[in-house]
């Protein structure tokens, strides 16, 4: 048995403290191992320094069906170095040596987890200090096997809600979710155009009646302005492709990406806190 830990407590504490300060969560996403396995933990610390509240760490997959070209290429760069889910868990363990506070959510596709073994994955993720797990291609109806194990090891199951989600499905999703809900602001893949805050607000309103979980919005957030726009109506914003593009531009000089990641995230932090 792992060390007793309240269910998703780092995530809950994070949102409780933000809420007390009247601030919104800033949640950056990067793909683990992109462009080099050795630099991911440095990127994670840099993101926290620049104002990240939670980090979503992408598990590279050969067939990222819900992702646009930016994240697809990030997966390819990471997989060139043979980065595996077990390596990713080691990265989180390494990150936790310096940072015991910032919640880490793993985001990816089911097959690498299934291949490692659901029990093995959940146990080790719990041990190294992962806080939540978002499996893009595992809707709540398909969580019979992995779901109970995530609970057992105090890992919050994070689920997507889309503009196309029916009210009945939204209720099912809310019943299964903890940590926060990830609202996909657009029909499409990651890295698409910017969302409209009024549209987002219209979709978030009914969710507020179904759940007390924080509602975070992702897909299409690329700068301070789009982050602030969406944060008017949401509890947090998730930014992925915009950061990963900076990493791609510095593929051969990965250290130089750190300054750019920090600059972009700081801009968003300031826009959110303004």
């Amino acid at each position: 048995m792992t060390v007793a830990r309240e269910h998703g407590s780092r995530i809950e504490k994070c949102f409780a403290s933000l809420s007390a300060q009247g601030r919104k969560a800033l949640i950056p996403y990067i793909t683990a191992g992109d462009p080099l396995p050795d630099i991911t933990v440095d990127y994670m610390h840099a993101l926290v320094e620049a104002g990240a509240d939670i980090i979503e760490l992408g598990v590279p997959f050969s067939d990222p069906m819900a992702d646009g070209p930016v994240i697809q290429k990030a997966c390819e760069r990471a997989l060139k170095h043979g980065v595996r889910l077990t390596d990713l868990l080691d990265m989180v363990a390494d990150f936790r040596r310096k940072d015991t506070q910032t919640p880490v959510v793993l985001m990816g596709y089911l097959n690498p987890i299934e291949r490692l073994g659901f029990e093995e994955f959940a146990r080790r993720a719990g041990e190294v200090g992962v806080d939540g797990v978002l499996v893009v291609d595992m809707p709540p109806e398909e969580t019979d096997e992995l779901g109970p194990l995530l609970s057992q090891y105090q890992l919050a199951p994070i689920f997507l809600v889309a503009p196309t989600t029916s009210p009945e499905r939204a209720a099912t999703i809310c019943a299964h979710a903890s940590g926060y809900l990830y609202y996909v602001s657009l029909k499409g893949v990651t890295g698409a155009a910017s969302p409209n805050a009024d549209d987002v607000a219209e979709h978030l309103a009914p969710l507020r009646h179904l759940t007390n979980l924080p509602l975070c919005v992702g897909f299409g957030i690329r700068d301070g302005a789009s982050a602030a726009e969406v944060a008017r109506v949401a509890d947090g914003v998730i930014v992925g492709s915009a950061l990963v593009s900076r990493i791609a531009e510095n593929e051969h000089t990965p250290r130089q990406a750190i300054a750019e990641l920090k600059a972009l995230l700081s801009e968003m932090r300031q826009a959110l806190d303004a």
Partner: protein
Amino acid sequence: MSKFSDLTRLPDARGHFGPYGGRFVSETLSFALEDLSRTYDRLRQDPTFQAEFDYDLAHYVGRPSPLYHARRWSQQLGGAQIWLKREDLNHTGAHKVNNTIGQALLARHSGKPRVIAETGAGQHGVATATVAARLGLKCDVYMGEADTQRQKLNVYRMRLLGANVIPVTSGTRTLKDAMNEALRDWVTNVDDTFYIIGTVAGPHPYPQLVRDFNAVVGREARRQSLEHFGQLPDALIACVGGGSNAMGLFYPFVEDDEVAMYGVEAGGDGVETGRHAAPLASGAPRGVLHGNRTYLMSDEGGQVSDTHSISAGLDYPGVGPEHALWKDVGRVNYVAANDDEVLDAFRELTRVEGIMPALESAHALAHARKLAPTMSSEQNIVVNLSGRGDKDILTVAGIDGIEL
């Protein structure tokens, strides 16, 4: 009472075939799949819809397709009588059109003006472009760039039919990547687009509805067997990539315990070399790809493996979930045929019977060549000749060192 009666009651309400199948998709697509399930559940019980489907199969596709006795080839092989289910004689030259006719009717009922498809060898793309032309639907077909090279004739056929062929340059640039790209398109354009999946894989309800639309092949073969030789066949053989032609032939025989079934996967350079596309025959682990759980070729880290086959249509690392279950319960024997055996069978049928098979179908023929001599001349094998080989002429010429 058949040992296998339970198999005909699947999938369950959530699209599971035992531990396989399901609906593993990102949330944006869930509503579209629920909607499709509702539409299909209603229409499959609707006699008007069935009549429309049957009419199109008879008058547009040219069904029933013949069950042809390959007498000369059977004699040469010196064993069982081989009967070819001539899906190659369908309009567009393969079994694929049975399914696209059905899904195009679904698309029309759902009122969507645009269809998309993935294709490997191009047969499903051609069959989709064909029905789209007939119904005046806009059509985009995703095809791996590697496949657009080896199936140039089908690419141009699709363009002549008014479809837009989009070469896919990501990943291995083959069928699985075409399917990734089609799913990305669908998730973006889900309001006005119907995705016509070409095989018995993908998220629920696709494995079920593609099976149902192709089952006409097996129903005809069953009736024709009784007409031609007064009993059910002793064995059925069909090639398996995703597995739609095999499913179509096998499904109406699933409760006939005395009928043996062989699904033939792409052995490529040989299953032992690792360069193949035979998840069932090679003992690949379980996994999840393209919306369903099945046997899936992947490495220890869960990354989907590169596959290899001489035939673009079988070059796929997974397999339909119902086949995965049929492997587990022992209803079907899944075997592999290697590229060189396939070429031999391709040439032999062409020379002995004057029928040029698709390289995909030649996998089934390659296994028939092995199986027939082990059986008596009183016994009967039905082989699904799922497509014609015109599209493969450039590939075979290339192997012969000839540039046309």
